[in-house]
């Protein structure tokens, strides 16, 4: 009898410490981490959007007859910059999908633009075009890395809110919902010219 009450006294503080130590507090931490990684994703896409007007005007100078391609890129860029996902919408797969769709359409519209350099040698000889293309390629690599980091952070957050005892905090205190991972088609995976010793393009 005496032993029982002693153990109960001992156990209560342990439980309290554990709960605050790694259960409940880990939810906002993981949530903030995922939101920060999402901000990185949007910043990388924004960087790409910022490059496109310069790229379009450079191409227009050398390949004016390709107006259809340029119009399509400009339109896709305008559409893509209109779609955003707020941190609160990260648990809304439909909002994520709309964002992915808009960015994927822009990715697809850029492909013919990149192919123009083969058809118009004058483009390739323009330093400005090469400079812009190198920034586009780096930006697309950055997009891929930030998406991967975001998805890792989301998986960690989703695991946290589903793991006992954080799940108690998740349900009772935060009403935490799982976040959606982000699936974009790799921008220009088929044409993004990784630098290769064998070729003269893509450097």
């Amino acid at each position, binding site marked *: 009898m005496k032993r029982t009450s002693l153990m109960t006294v001992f156990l209560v503080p*342990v439980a309290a410490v*554990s709960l605050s130590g*790694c259960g409940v507090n*880990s939810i906002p931490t993981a949530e903030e981490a995922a939101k920060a990684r999402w901000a990185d994703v949007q910043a990388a896409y924004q960087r790409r959007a910022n*490059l496109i007007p*310069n790229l379009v005007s450079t191409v227009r100078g050398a390949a004016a007859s390709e107006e259809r391609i340029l119009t399509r890129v400009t339109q896709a860029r305008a559409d893509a910059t209109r779609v955003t996902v707020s941190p609160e919408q990260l648990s809304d797969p439909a909002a994520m999908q709309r964002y992915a769709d808009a960015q994927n359409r822009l990715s697809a519209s850029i492909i013919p633009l990149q192919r123009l350099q083969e058809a118009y040698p004058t483009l390739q000889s323009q*330093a400005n075009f090469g400079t812009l293309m190198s920034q586009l390629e780096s930006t697309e690599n950055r997009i891929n890395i930030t998406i991967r980091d975001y998805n890792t952070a989301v998986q960690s957050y989703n695991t946290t809110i589903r793991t006992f005892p954080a799940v108690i905090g998740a349900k009772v205190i935060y009403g935490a919902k799982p976040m959606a991972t982000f699936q974009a088609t790799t921008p220009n995976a088929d044409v993004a010219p990784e630098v*290769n*010793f064998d070729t003269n393009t893509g450097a």
Partner: protein
Amino acid sequence: MTLLLSLLLLGGFGCGKAPPIVVDNSGFPALSGRVVDGADLLSPAQEARLSSKSEALEKEVGPQYVVVTLPSLHGRPIGEYGVDLGRHWGIGHRGRNDGLLLIVAPAERKVRIEVGYGLERRVTDPFAARVISEQALPNFKVGRFPEGIEAATDALVNRLRSKSTDAEIRQADGVVT
């Protein structure tokens, strides 16, 4: 009863931290020095010369520069592999993020410059692309790996030693974003 409860509680609240980012490090070579010549492209004298350039750079300017040659990318894109390798090694100083990696993968015929966030204003995307196309590739294409690595290293180190302001570099390199 109490014993059972205590076991349950201890088991239940012994919550493990969420696992850290899982990095498959099976393909990562060890960071054995400032030059990690996994593909065996460099002579000991060339390695020593590159190492001392990197060492002087860090001592006098700050950034950490590492050259790595890889026997294989294990089927992964060099851009992704390079970021993971830089993070795995922890190149650059914490808080400054001033690491710089030159990665050469002769088997896949790929080369890449990986720039820490803290150096992006100095080693811009267009500049890195130019170092590859003008210093590295012309040499690599004819099998002159040490010459290409050294020329690229000199260009990168010179840039990091440059007294130009970020704004001047931005304009000279034609940086848009």
